[in-house]
């Protein structure tokens, strides 16, 4: 039952070439400490799945800048000029989805299904005509579920069994990714004993979690970023 693991062991489970979902919409939810260890261990040819690319010099941007990432599946990277440049010069393959479609692809995998039907962007350049079908009198497109080998994310609180809660907007993709990946590695600054989290307040139940790593979240990545608040 106890999933408390040291960070080196947890990240060493990840082989070269793995598909990894990374939680976070911007900084909240991003597992900065797990990413730091992935940077140190140096796994390569990774495919990352994350809402965005963080910002230059932090989070997954460091893995991309370090050449460990082959492909990024994402929704918007406008806040990271460096990654936009790497995409434009061809050194990083990037695949874009509408934000809610990426979320739904992950949610669908997490529910054990294989795809869903949608009309988002049906007549736009994001749709390949071969994916369009007639369904109950409507034109819709088939959107496949998105599974991954690993998910890494941050939880505000976790017990040693792997029951999780998220804080404010740090929830974002994390609970969806927890359900869609085979091996789920969570970092938390608040690791508590089972029973400390009231069952009705658990956001992600322990069954979806493989490893829980206790971290020290006093570093600057976990603090306020300048210029993002009213002076």
């Amino acid at each position, binding site marked *: 039952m106890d999933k408390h693991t040291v960070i080196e062991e947890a990240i060493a489970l990840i082989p070269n070439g793995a598909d990894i979902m990374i939680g976070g919409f911007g900084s909240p939810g991003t597992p900065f400490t797990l990413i730091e260890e992935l940077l140190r261990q140096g796994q390569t040819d990774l495919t990352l799945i994350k809402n965005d690319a963080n910002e230059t010099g932090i989070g997954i941007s460091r893995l991309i800048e370090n050449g460990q990432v082959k492909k990024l599946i994402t929704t918007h990277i406008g806040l990271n000029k460096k990654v936009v440049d790497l995409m434009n010069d061809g050194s990083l393959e990037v695949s874009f989805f509408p934000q809610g479609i990426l979320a739904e692809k992950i949610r669908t995998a997490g529910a054990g299904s294989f795809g869903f039907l949608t009309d*988002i962007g049906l007549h736009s350049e994001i749709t390949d005509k071969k994916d369009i079908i007639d369904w109950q009198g409507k034109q819709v497109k088939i959107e496949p579920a998105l599974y991954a080998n690993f998910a890494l994310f941050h939880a505000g609180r976790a017990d040693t069994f792997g029951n999780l809660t998220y804080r404010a907007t740090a929830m974002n993709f994390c609970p969806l990714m927890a359900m869609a990946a085979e091996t789920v590695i969570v970092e938390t600054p608040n690791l508590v004993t089972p029973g400390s989290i009231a069952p009705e307040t658990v956001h992600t139940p322990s069954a979806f979690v493989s490893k829980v790593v206790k971290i020290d979240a006093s570093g600057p990545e976990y603090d306020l970023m300048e210029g993002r608040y009213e002076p």
Partner: protein
Amino acid sequence: MSLERILKRAAHEITDGQTINLGIGVPTMLVNYLPADRDVMIHSENGVLGAGRKASVATADPALIDAGGSYITTRPGGAFFDSAVSFAMIRRAKLDMSVMGAFEVDQEGNLANWKIPGKFSPGIGGAMELAQKTKNILILCTHQDKHGNSKILKKCTLPLTAEKCVSRIITDMAVMDVTKDGLVLKEIAEGLTIEQVVQATDADLILGEEVRSF
């Protein structure tokens, strides 16, 4: 200045009881132009209903941002949720209005605001789902680009975010409504003539019964 004029005018579009989404950039600034007692629920794509004004360094929480990455406050009665729920809310049309920017809008209500091929392609974000599924799309943009070209066109040239989705456009020069007959000029900015606005616009403008100043 022009931005101020757009935002002041746009604040009148937000009424008590609405659930709205404010797009990244200029639309997000609208929150500062609303009267403090305006009773609205502001949705942010990253999983907030009930977003408030930007936080100060004293009130900012590192785990609480809006979709543009700014630290925000929340109003009483707010909620946090995951990204699938956030976009279910959008695709199920639970928002009364989305306020968005534009590179181009045309007289049929087509909107282009996500990509300029070869120049700007940072991704789609929430734009397509918001534009395609929200009942009312309010566009805020300057009337012309830096080179003096009209952003209000007969037909969009850039890849579309969504087709025939826009209901109203507020620029620094005019307020225009997309109707089944075409684009209707409702209001013009103080100090301008109808002639000047028509001159500055590529789209065909239908003059409303009464064109007021704002």
